């Protein structure tokens, strides 16, 4: 997995053409709500269990 592949996949998933311009102040004011964190943890656990078809 290369850096380009990760960035390409992320842009594709978010249907963005380029990296959004966010700065330090944006990041600092952003708080991750509990339900978003819970969704993230659930996906993480599932991805460790799930097996997808490789190449």
């Amino acid at each position: 997995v290369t850096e380009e592949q990760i960035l390409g996949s992320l842009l594709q998933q978010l249907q963005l053409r380029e990296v959004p311009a966010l700065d330090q102040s944006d990041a600092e004011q952003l708080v991750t709500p509990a339900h978003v964190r819970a969704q993230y943890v659930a996906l993480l656990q599932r991805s460790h269990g799930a097996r997808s078809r490789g190449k």
Partner: protein
Amino acid sequence: RFSQNFREVAGRFLVSDASTRLLVLSMERRLPPNSELVQAVLRLFQEPVPEAALRRHERLSPRSDLARVTIEWLHVRADGSNRTSLIDSRLVSIHESGWKAFDVTEAVNFWQQLSRPQEPLLLQVSVQREHLGPLASSAHRLVRFASQGPWDGAQDEPQLELHTLDLRDFGAQGNCDPEAPVTEGTRCCRQEMYIDLQGMKWAEHWVLEPPGFLAYECVGTCQQPPQALTFKWPFLGPRQCIASETTSLPMIVGIKEGGRLRAQVVSLPNMRVQKCSCASDGSPVPRRLEP
């Protein structure tokens, strides 16, 4: 019929009179554990057509001496319903007799996906007209295959050949030994590879989680089959060490909408290697069994 607007169109049934036989093949302990199925060949013995029948056929329908033989995998579901999948089909001539080979690798793949080793492999063998239509000959009625007899081992009963590779020789090993360096001779394995997202400029202020992740990669080489086997399976390329199972990577990223910033979860497919295997270019990718 009976419509004021449409002229009646009568149809005529074409008698399909395909003869269909069901082959029941026990598969218990046929496939060695820890092996990879490369090819499965069904061999059927086509019996010679008696001279008199041949002469009568030539007189009655000289157009064609061919018949179509079709092999289907029969899946009997738990609810008792049946489903068939086309596996192989070829033309045979009534002037030939002897062993005819059909590639039934996919049927054995389907059977393996059922994960019910004690259940037999069910193959439906149909002999049909060469093609549909009023001009098609009836040569198919003269095609006979020797069938499974009540006793085992009859010389001409159907044969199923299973060609496998022993994965203890031709397969991968699990995870690489972190203590041992990877060299030319290292057998295909999964090696830890950590991706530091915080070190990527574009991820700054945008990717909130994770800071990094273990992606793994497949390294090492695979043992190649001996010359004789590559000659037997010309459709197979060299065996390579590949990521045979991967999994997705969830992330939390910042999304700006209407001037407001919010956190969102996104999942990137095929980002982490779960399993490395040795596989040959050209080997068919098994169709997944639909529920």
